[in-house]
């Protein structure tokens, strides 16, 4: 890939300083970043095992005595590296609000009801095809104090490890057709529409479970190639 290609890809990432998102003002670094050569220590990563998972970690609708309120959904897709190869056996973690737009978190003061049957946290390992799958309920939109009448679009937070330090990704998945996306500075911090679209899942009728749950498809592409063999 040429330098120009890399430059155009960097232009698709959000800047650290993005004044419409107020919290960036005192937290974005002010000095230029130093380019870190991709030496060995950024090309390796932790190994995960099934022993670290419980069978229901991926199903956010079955972690309590009863079923949570809300629209039941399946969210699934593949984790791929920049070469399009599946990233296998890697840890994917999610967290989200309940259907009313409230996090089960003591700092969330939004006066929407908590759901005793919903914590909103899940995790799984990708399979041999790099596939992850969660069962949950559709999260709600909620207000925040960034600007007058600011509302976050419904989203699910994702954390993905990958097989190299360069892969590590924390991001948010959004839902198609959400009118709040046009007004959300966090989503809009991504400079190009094509890059923003990569955070929006697709409704996929083939993934629905009839009479039970809607299905959304969302692939995650990690930055850089897969782990390379150890060098001497």
């Amino acid at each position, binding site marked *: 890939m040429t330098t120009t290609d890399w430059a155009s890809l960097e232009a698709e990432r959000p800047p650290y300083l993005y004044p419409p998102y107020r919290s960036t003002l005192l937290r974005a*670094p*002010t000095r230029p970043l130093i380019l870190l050569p991709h030496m060995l220590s950024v090309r390796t990563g932790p190994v995960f095992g099934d022993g670290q998972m419980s069978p229901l970690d991926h199903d956010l609708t079955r972690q309590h005595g009863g079923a949570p309120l809300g629209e039941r959904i399946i969210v699934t897709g593949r984790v791929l590296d920049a070469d399009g190869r599946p990233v296998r056996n890697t840890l994917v973690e999610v967290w989200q609000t309940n259907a009313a737009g409230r996090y089960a978190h003591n700092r969330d003061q939004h006066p929407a009801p908590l759901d005793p049957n919903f914590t909103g946290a899940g995790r799984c390992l990708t399979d041999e095809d790099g596939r992850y799958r969660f069962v949950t309920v559709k999260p709600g939109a909620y207000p925040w104090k960034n600007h007058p009448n600011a509302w976050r679009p419904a989203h699910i937070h994702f954390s993905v490890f990958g097989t190299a330090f360069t892969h590590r990704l924390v991001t948010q998945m959004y839902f198609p057709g959400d009118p709040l996306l046009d007004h959300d500075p966090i989503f809009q911090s991504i400079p190009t529409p094509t890059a923003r679209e*990569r955070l929006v899942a697709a409704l996929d009728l083939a993934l629905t479970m009839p009479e039970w749950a809607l299905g959304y498809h969302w692939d995650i592409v990690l930055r850089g190639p897969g782990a390379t063999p150890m060098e001497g």
Partner: protein
Amino acid sequence: MFRPATPPQTIGPFFHIGLDAPGPEQLVSAEHPDVVRIEGRVLDGAGHPVDDALIEVWDADGARFGRCATDAEGRYHFLAGKPVSGSAARAPGEAPHLNVSVFARGLLDRLVTRIYFPDQAAANAADPVLSTIADPGARATLVARAEAGSLRFDIHLQGEQETVFFAL
């Protein structure tokens, strides 16, 4: 076939419900013979503690990672293994170090930095990453400070003592 990367988004202030598993701040057990406690604070451009950051540390061979959410004073800590010669896979000439990611509300992408060890002066002087940083004050932000029984590594997101952050 090349695939463009999924863009990052902020971790937000509520990550604790999903990522704060018990004991994640230990890269090695407290009984490890070469264990060292690394602690510090995360501060914003006004000098205020960042009380909703997640600090994640991978050791240099990537095998072990730890993560710790900052507390009300912006403090985090880890237990890690002290560098032992030949113990970690590194590129030739690299000094022992830990790779660090900083995630927080207000950070649209993670910040990447490194913790180097203060008792490795010769290795640090020859390190190919540290030596690309001309300003000695900036370079010093990457080396932990020895304190009684622990190592201190503060992370300044902005300001006079702004930590050196890396682009990958």
